[in-house]
């Protein structure tokens, strides 16, 4: 039994009036943001969750942390199922770092007050040790003590992200989910934050789930990568294998589409044509079929599931393990 297990998790949102749809005899306006995702992570492993907008990766993160309810399926941590109603101690174990530095910190609290509140409510340390612990947390994320009494508006984007990491770590979690934690930062500031996440993961034995749309960044941080498309996981492989030899056409297209040094764009060329279909009107069979260069008849009739040599080496394509490289 793996440390963190996500089993067939589905998350749905209502996007219109159920009553109106029933009157008009239309299908219920329900958006399935996450559609039966399963994967697992060992303690201390770093999983990268990759996909473009609308694939459901952020929603999945929120479901794992308990921010949004799970429609079906379950999440298990260390053998125990995490239900909709979680007590405070359970919530402590999974924490999150958010994307947008301008909205991830409460503007009316100083850094110290924010950290102290968490330490106090969860009784992490005795009251007289709270200030010391705040200082330790700042050291952990390589920030000067002087910023403790500042408010978020005084801090730069990179500093705010570090504070976000400190906040997540204040509760001494076992799982840390970074939801596009560096996407809003300048490149020169991203690198130290990524390095910090890597070293914290090693030093604290954290299980890291790194969510990003940027494949190169994910590669730098993750042991394993799960690629998502329209609510489903389409590939789940060790990072080195995935980047060297992607098995799902979508992953291949994504890697081809990413801009690379030394490459020049040919006129009119595009690695992946068209746009993803609306999540409310999914194609039959494989969801990627309309844009897939390998699409065949079987793809229309039979939606491929994740399959492969092992639990941690799978792709959801009928031709994943048979087709030759498609350039």
């Amino acid at each position: 039994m793996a440390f963190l297990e996500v089993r067939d998790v589905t998350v749905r949102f209502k996007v219109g009036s159920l009553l109106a749809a029933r009157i008009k005899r239309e299908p219920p306006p329900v958006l399935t943001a996450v559609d039966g995702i399963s994967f697992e992570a060992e303690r201390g492993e770093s999983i990268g969750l990759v996909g473009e907008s609308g694939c459901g990766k952020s929603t999945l993160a929120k479901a794992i942390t308990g921010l949004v309810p799970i429609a079906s399926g379950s999440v298990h941590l260390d053998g125990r199922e995490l239900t909709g109603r979680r007590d405070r101690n359970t919530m402590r174990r999974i924490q999150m770092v958010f994307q947008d530095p301008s909205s991830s910190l409460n503007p009316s609290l100083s850094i110290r007050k924010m950290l102290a509140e968490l330490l106090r409510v969860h009784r992490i340390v005795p009251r007289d040790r709270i200030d010391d612990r705040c200082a330790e947390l700042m050291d952990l994320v390589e920030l000067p003590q002087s910023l403790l009494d500042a408010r978020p508006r005084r801090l730069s984007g990179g500093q705010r992200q570090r504070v976000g990491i400190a906040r997540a770590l204040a509760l001494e979690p076992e799982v840390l989910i970074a939801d596009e934690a560096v996407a809003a930062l300048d490149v020169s500031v991203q690198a130290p934050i990524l390095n910090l996440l890597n070293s914290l993961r090693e030093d604290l034995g954290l299980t890291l789930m790194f969510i990003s749309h940027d494949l190169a960044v994910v590669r730098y941080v993750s042991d394993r990568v799960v690629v998502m498309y329209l609510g489903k996981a389409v590939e789940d492989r060790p990072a080195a294998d995935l980047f060297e030899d992607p098995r799902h056409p979508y992953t291949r297209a994504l890697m081809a589409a990413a801009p690379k040094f030394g490459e020049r764009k040919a006129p009119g060329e595009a690695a992946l044509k068209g746009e993803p279909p609306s999540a409310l009107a999914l194609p039959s069979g494989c969801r990627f079929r309309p844009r897939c260069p390998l699409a065949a008849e079987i793809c229309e009739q039979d939606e491929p599931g994740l399959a492969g040599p092992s639990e941690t080496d799978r792709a959801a394509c009928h031709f994943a393990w048979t087709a030759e490289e498609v350039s």
Partner: protein
Amino acid sequence: MTTPPASSFEAVPELHHAAAPLGDPGIWRRMPKKVWVGLAIVALYVLVALLAPVLAPHDPLAIDPVNRLAAPSADHLLGTDELGRDVLSRLLHAFRVDLPLGFLGALLPAILGTVLGALAGFFGRWVDTVIMRTGDVVQAFPAYILVIVLVFALGQGARSIIIAFTVLAWVIYARIIRSEVLRVKDLDYVHAARVAGLPRLRILRVHVVPNVINQTLVYLPNDIVFATLALAAFSFLGLGIPQPTPEWGAMIADGQPFIRTNWWLATVPGLVIVGLGLGLSLVGEGLEEGLRS
């Protein structure tokens, strides 16, 4: 889909929402001048209210039927009213009636409306429905009818007025705060508080309310003006503070029949109200600009 760093000429990215004024000393330094001017005016009014018994040359209730409707003189700087009472003294003592009632008549609805709006926005579902639909019903009633009914039921006087205002005016605060809470509820720092397992009421109190209260603060000075004017209107209609207590609206009403001969009886209290309104408007406008960091 992802937001790159902030605009092109900021080396230090600024937060995109107004910083809460509570406890942030820097905010007061950045306030536009008009806030201080307005506050000075309001402070002056408060001072007059406090010192009225000392400043007033005569007893505001002392009737002198022989000397009624006298023109301004050294002894009666604003003359006397139709019952021979010194207008100036009545005007000054009216500060002690209108000012507290105007403030309370805005503050109590603000508090009630903020609390209800925050609860409605934060908890949603049936709490939201109950509170907001009640607000709809309240707003659907013609305000003055409601006040008349309440005053008849509870009797004339300051207490009834305050209750009437509170029952009516909370709705707009609730709407403003509710919409702000809906916006803030979805920001990442609130998500973070939830993920940290903090109790919901605590999240509301510490993480949500301080960041939405700006709107209340901006609206409040203007609402004090409205409350004062409403009080004056009710007194004008005979529903406000009962005689013989001096009150600006009542004084205007009393002076109205004599507008041709003793025009100042109605006009001067009116100007006093305008002055207060000016001061409060400056504060309100200034706060809105200053809080819009």
